[in-house]
């Protein structure tokens, strides 16, 4: 059986205008890659229906080790949580190829 290794899955849901800024933060924190998808929903800043430019949201997911996850969460919250619709959470997951997810 393939050995599995513990990693963190950081999921960020935020305003689509932040996409580039979040990706820059992610690279600076040392993450090796990400997966992004369009999202819509509702939160403390109201409904984001995703039906026009101003209400688009994205979900960005990053697989990384615990240190990178910590740096990423800290940087994102410090820079963007006060002024932007942004939510994030970290889950424990297992991966088969740990070298891909620094």
């Amino acid at each position, binding site marked *: 059986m393939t050995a599995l290794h513990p990693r963190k899955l950081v999921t960020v849901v935020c*305003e689509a*205008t932040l996409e580039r800024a979040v990706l820059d933060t992610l690279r600076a924190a040392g993450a090796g890659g990400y997966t992004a998808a*369009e999202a819509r929903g509702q939160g403390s*800043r*109201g*409904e984001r*229906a*995703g*039906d*026009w*430019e*101003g*209400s*688009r949201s994205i979900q960005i997911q990053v697989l990384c080790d615990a240190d990178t996850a910590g740096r990423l969460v800290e940087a994102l919250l410090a820079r963007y949580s*006060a*002024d*932007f619709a942004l939510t994030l959470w970290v889950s424990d997951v297992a991966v088969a190829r740990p070298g891909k997810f620094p």
Partner: protein
Amino acid sequence: MPDPVVLFFALGLAARLARSDLRMPEPLYEALSIYLLLALGLKGGAALAQSAAPALAGQALLAIALGCVLPLIAFAILRHLGGIDRSNSAAIAAHYGSVSVVTFAAGLAYLNARAIASEPTMPFLVAVLEVPALLVGVLLARLGTGREAHLLRTVREAAVGKSIVLLAGGLAIGALLGKEGTAPLEPLFGDLFKGALCLFMLELGLVVGGQLPALRRAGAFLAGFALAVPPLFAVLGAGTGWLMGLSHGGIALMATLAASASYIAAPAAMRMAVPEANPALSISVVLGVTFPFNVLVGIPLYERMAAAIA
């Protein structure tokens, strides 16, 4: 006869208020907005090729001046009459100083339906009017606060934002091709324009309907501001159009542009340049009050006003 553009808008609005499950796919919305911006740009560009440069430069300078004055007036009203904080006043002022391309397209459709001619180079002035108010807004938000204004970044981001890229790009392509060169594109970018605008207005009706609940949080002052400012700015726009030496239709379109508030370029620019301003405040009044007011009531009013001036 009612205007089809208005009827489609009303249908979208009614569907959203009745909680219909009607939803326009987002890629269609995006495709339609790209189409409308390009179509307006191409049409204006083909006319630019035949226009006198000095006259256009004079008009552009007047448009830039108008684009700087409008947000200053809006800011003064919001800050001193409304007591709204500096950041939010500046961000809302930028929205009202900049322009809405769709409101312009609705105005153009209104004039065309009544066989009122306007200067074919008007889309050039739309592109010119879009940016100055965004810069004034950023300056107003940062003046005296000790925080950096990042004006260059705002200029760069606005210049590569889709509305400027497509409108200015369409203008450039149209100018290079001229009337003859753009003729083969006419079936797509000319004949289908009004129908595409109707589809877009259906979607905007849905979006506006979704903004109405947020209006309650914006408060009575802002809602009143969003109703009172368009006619006031229309007078200034019409005056500028008269100074530019525009025709009856051109003056009506300048009034419409001044009365309109941006909901694509301004929200994007303000979000990054003045992030502490609450976007829900500006969007709810721009889309919930000013846009429907201009489409339903304002444009016919501005046309009458232009007829009196011209």
